[in-house]
């Protein structure tokens, strides 16, 4: 995985997002959404740069990034895997699905595989409760999962 570099292109991307939000401190959450949407994640350098643009302390930016679960300081994999841990999925055994993804990938929640292909995280309710237990890879929803389907799903993406 290559290290993030705050180069001129990335700086320009951040400035553009800040401009769309009038460089307003009150819009910092929208700015973070915009930047994460474009860069994939919010490493420390990016947060410092955003703080400067909006004229607020970097502690405030970090306070927000760490408060809200949607923001991440780690890059996600090429195929981000999200296992639903909503109640409906829980009572239909989502913990076993998560455990199997962990075991197969050798990573924990919030981590990315060394080859950068997969990252594993959990979320609370996709709203596809009729298909519980559910996991998502990117935008695709996998429903009615059983632990022994997991290896096959990973293999399908690994070879892509």
């Amino acid at each position, binding site marked *: 995985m290559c290290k993030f570099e705050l180069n001129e292109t990335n700086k320009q991307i951040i400035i553009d997002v800040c401009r769309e939000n009038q460089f307003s401190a009150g819009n910092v959450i929208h700015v973070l959404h915009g930047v994460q949407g474009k860069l994939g994640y919010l490493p420390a350098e990016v947060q410092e740069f955003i703080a400067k643009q909006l004229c607020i302390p970097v502690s405030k930016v970090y306070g927000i990034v760490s408060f*809200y679960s949607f923001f991440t300081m780690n890059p996600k994999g090429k195929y981000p895997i999200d296992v639903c841990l909503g*109640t409906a999925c829980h*009572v239909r055994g989502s913990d076993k699905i998560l455990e199997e993804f962990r*075991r197969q990938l050798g990573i924990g929640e919030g981590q990315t595989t060394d080859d950068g292909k997969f990252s594993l995280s959990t*979320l609370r309710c*996709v709203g*596809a409760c009729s298909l519980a237990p559910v996991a998502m890879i990117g935008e695709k929803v996998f429903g009615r999962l059983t632990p022994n389907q997991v290896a096959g799903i990973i293999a399908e993406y690994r070879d892509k």
Partner: protein
Amino acid sequence: MAKLKSLADLQALYESSQPIMADRKGPKGSTGTKTILVCGDTGCAASGSVPIIENFKKSIEAHGLQDKVKVIRTGCFGFCERGPIVKIMPDNTFYTEVAADDVEDIIETHIINGNRVEHLLYTDPDTQETIEESENIGFYKKQMRIALRNCGVIDAENIEEYIACEGYLALAKCLTEYTPEKVVEIVTESGLGGRGGAGFPTGKKWAATARAKGNQKYMVCNADEGDPGAFMDRSILEGDPHSVLEAMAIGGYAVGADKGLIYIRAEYPMAVHRLHMAIAQAKEYGLLGENILGTGFNFDIELRYGAGAFVCGEATALIHSMEGKRGEPTYKPPRTSEKGYLEKPTNVNNVETYANIPIIIRKGAEWFSSIGTANSKGTKVFALAGQVNNVGLIEVPMGTTLREIIYEIGGGIKDGKKFKAVQTGGPSGGCLTEKHLDIPIDYKSLTAAGSMMGSGGMVIMDETSCMVSIAKFYLDFTVPESCGKCNPCRIGNKRLAEMLDKITKGKGTMEDLEKLRNLSINIKDTALCGLGQSSPNPILSTLDNFWDEYVEHVVDKKCRAGVCKDLIHYEINKAVCIGCGACARNCPVEAISGERKMPHFIDQETCIKCGTCVTKCKFNAIQIK
């Protein structure tokens, strides 16, 4: 589209748009054309409705039926269990579990030849008869769709379909016929209570914001649906976004606000997209913006994104988040109706609450208050999920019993298992049992029984759910969601979760159970906001209703549901095992071995207790001990 400049313009558009809906009004309005409604909500889309719509479009073109048949992507029909759903109007034929490959069959058999496609009709599990009309299916019989009135009926991306269903006529009526005070009066008299969970009278909230002094006021829509296992608000926003926009404008007129803000989860991309589209359309038609319908009333709506924090469902936390701060709640009073967004008077209502407003204005307070019970009026939408046959989105009049919901609408417990508990209110609610099934549900009765209405999550559990684990599941949810501002919530909930962890690992003592109860009560009494005050509810309700199960975990070190891994192990019954090898082949860790046609054996050291072998064994030879 030219802007609508007056009530007369809107009425003219309403009249001229009626042909769009003619098919959908059933055989009476039949025009010789057909409309195919396909559910495009997240649930049905996940089970494949997008290729179905594409195939319909292709097939219609291939058969040259463009002038006679149209396909509409609608919002949620509710019957997610049998999705994807396709409904043909005006014939009122309801097809379930449709696959992309069935499309050609529907076009040829149904549309061209006028016969029903029998194998796609719903079969009643009791009588084995096929049912054509959705109204006659058990799932729908006891439902009453008010907030969901347009979901599964209209194309959410087309404002004219909403207008054709009397959309924005309620706003027009308020602006031209009623004073703001009269609007507040109607909402108050209707008895509508906040659908976010607490049931605070909406009219009272509006009156407080109307009374508050300030030159700038705000109408806020709380669309930060955080309850895991609940998707009512998302379905309304995806299936009928204009009803929320119209209601916010009505509220703005009533309280004197010209600005609306919708606080929505960024995790709902489709709902965000639909809202952006709906706001743009409403502005284009002059139904939002300046001088609406020539009445001099201005109202504009913007979106504010949430970023995944359960506590932001609390009004003060939500407002801080909208201001670009951490979503930490503050003491009330002052209430948000006096000092809210940017310190200005702010009215905060939930999506479902808003969705009820336009129809209340159109049909009157008396009509609405005639539905429901003495203290809770109207209907409530629930996301029915868990171990029940018919998972889906339902809307029932207040006063319906849990038994009716679970057994008549829900079709009973999956796989013929035994009902154990029903959880309402999500992480703030509790678990109710068999003895509560005949309570007519409303805000008061559910609270009295030890749970709460909540936003509408309803999860059914059977005997395979361990109630101690369920309490732990909710605490594990609440602990990281605590904003950390007050000690009872930040530290207390953590301690509760640790005690539950100890109990599920078989290391708990009877003293722990006592501590668990005392600490829970203390947190309820002392936490700052609604999140902390309600987070011990799952523990208290399970302690009350499933005390024996806690004692079993502590004294006998047993988990009767076979869920707590440290308290169970799997064994193969040698007398029953025929040595087919299905368990060994499917075991993800190769913990099972044995000769072909000879009883197999589980290596307890390697076994991860995933339970796959139990589901794969056709002879029930694997037992949880």
